């Protein structure tokens, strides 16, 4: 895979505070990369560095093979879409779309052609004569995407483009962005803190924390093989169950309870004995009949039941530690009910309790 955007040893400091330090990132041509992380971890900062809106302190940025570290935003071959739309309020949609092209002195016919194409792709032809104030949030964001589209750039940067929209519109526009990516095949870098958006859109997800990329991998790998406790806890809803105990060769013991680890694939052989944390996703815990087929089973009592519609989340205890599980809403559950739960430890994740790193 050819790289489209390449960040080498990027450091960015606001005064004495280093928000990003020695960050490296390679994004392939045509790839959809999602930057995911909690608020304030530096996602927008990284995006602004790529766009050239922030002057970096150290390192290099390459876009489409060109060193753009010192280039102006307009010369980097990027388009950017902001959470707050950032449309020019006094211009019509048409002039919003064409502003960049007019500034660059492009011939009129070419501008018209590009605006027509972008408005066709985004289905905003009827809105061309309106001002941004006369548009709904979803329409505004479409225009904002169009503004990046007309510039015919290699790389699209999105900074939480859907965060201002309501849930329904968000999922509609999410699909539309995915469709757009499949049609244009541009490189897209997309910032969000919505993990559904990240999982559904991304070819690869970069999970950030405090300006450091924790894990950069496919949604599947990030979900199933989180590299540390942070990633494990950040991805998935309801969050992964964490059981504190002790790893001893091929068993995980919580006080008197021994959980055989069976086929669990350790990162490296011979971990020996150490304090560990066993992470199990709620949806990997089976109840009732299904539990009987699992390598590890346990009888317990339901404490709380949360019906979600499509499925039900139940709360119970394993060796005194709270555990949630998710099952079909067809299974009748009630607080106080005795049930059997079961899971396959091989599908879980084991972490070193000290460092939080996957073992």
């Amino acid at each position, binding site marked *: 895979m050819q790289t489209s955007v390449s960040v080498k040893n990027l450091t960015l400091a606001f005064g004495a505070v280093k928000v990003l330090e020695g960050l490296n990132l390679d994004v392939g041509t045509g790839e959809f990369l999602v930057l995911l992380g909690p608020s304030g971890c530096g996602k927008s900062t990284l995006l602004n560095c790529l766009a050239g*809106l922030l002057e970096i302190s150290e390192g290099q940025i390459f876009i489409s093979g060109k060193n753009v570290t010192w280039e102006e935003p307009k010369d980097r071959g990027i388009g950017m879409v902001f*959470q707050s*739309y*950032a449309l*020019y309020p*006094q*211009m019509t949609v048409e002039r919003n779309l064409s*502003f960049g092209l007019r*500034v*660059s002195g492009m011939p009129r016919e070419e501008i018209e052609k590009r605006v027509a194409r972008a408005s066709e792709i985004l289905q905003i032809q009827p809105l061309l004569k309106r001002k941004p104030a006369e548009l709904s949030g979803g329409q505004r964001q479409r225009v904002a995407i169009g503004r990046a589209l007309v510039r015919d750039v290699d790389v699209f940067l999105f900074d939480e483009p859907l965060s201002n929209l309501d849930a329904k519109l968000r999922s509609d526009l999410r699909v539309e962005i995915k469709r757009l990516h499949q049609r244009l095949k541009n490189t897209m870098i997309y910032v969000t803190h919505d993990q559904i958006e990240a999982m559904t859109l991304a070819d690869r997800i970069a999970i950030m924390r405090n300006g450091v990329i924790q894990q950069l991998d496919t949604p599947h790998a990030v979900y199933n093989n989180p590299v540390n406790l942070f990633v494990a806890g950040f991805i998935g809803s309801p969050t992964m169950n964490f059981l504190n105990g002790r790893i001893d060769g091929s068993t995980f013991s919580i006080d008197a309870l021994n959980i055989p680890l069976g086929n669990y694939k350790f990162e490296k052989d011979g971990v020996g004995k150490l304090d560990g944390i066993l992470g199990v996703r709620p949806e990997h815990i089976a109840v009732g009949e299904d539990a009987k087929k699992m390598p590890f089973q346990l009888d317990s009592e339901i404490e709380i039941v949360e019906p979600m519609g499509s499925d039900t989340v139940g709360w119970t205890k394993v060796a005194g530690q709270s555990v949630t599980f998710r099952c079909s809403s067809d299974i009748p559950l009630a607080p106080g009910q005795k049930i059997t739960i079961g899971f396959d430890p091989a599908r879980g994740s084991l972490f070193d309790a000290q460092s939080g790193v996957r073992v």
Partner: protein
Amino acid sequence: MTAEALDATGFAGPHGAKPKQLSWGRVGIYAFLVIAALFFLVPLYVMLVTSLKSMPEVREAHIFNLPREPTIQPWIDAMFNACTGRNCTGLSPGFWNSVKITVPSVIVSIIIASINGYALSFWKYKGAEFFFNLLVFGAFVPYQVVIYPIIIGMSKVHLFGTLPGIIIVHTIFGMPLLTILFRNFYSSLPIEIFKAARIDGAGFWQTFFKVMLPMSVPITVVAVILQVTGIWNDFLFGLVFAGTENIPMTLQLNNMVKTTQGTIQYDVNMAATMLTALVPLIIYFVSGKWFVRGIAAGAVKG
């Protein structure tokens, strides 16, 4: 549910809109407001009726009476015929001088201040904060302190007592407040609009003229009102810097009212004063709505 009687509408207890009560506090507030309004309106009323009377009627000294035979002759005299010493031109030369001073001063100061505010908000260069703090400080410097140095500076460049000189002085003294006004307005705009313009390839001036300026109408109206009233009503700078050729209307009014020989023409003086106050007054009435909107502009996101 026992003693509570149902009223005509069939509800028991409080329901619907709460009835308004006139408390003593309210009465006090209204009384204060009425007195405050009278305090300003009564003199204005006296001036207006006096200016519409002829001199014999004025001498009757019924200052609150409406004019028996209303006449606008005092207004015409004040504008064109009244004498300042031996010079009987009315206020019209002063009026035109004030126009010549006010219009360029307002335009130049607002253009410079809006560019300043824009640069301070969006192009954060080294020392921008320091420069801004200096301006804020400048807004509090008493005029009298700096007048003498400016006189010397102005005469060094041969602008003392000239039209460009007084325009420059007004521009300089308007700068701190206007720059703060524009900076705060631009700072309240979403920074993303500026970023979008940069990505679209617009430079410093293109972003200013094509993106920011069209959004600045409300704050510009506020600035125009502040500057027009401030400069039109100015007396001190006109006295010191304008020179005898360019004395503004306020100054001429003062000279005219003070140097009357023989009988004091109250009707003409009143008319002259009203005429001088008319321009700021018109500006207020025409743009009052815009003014309020501009002051509140920080709360309105584009």
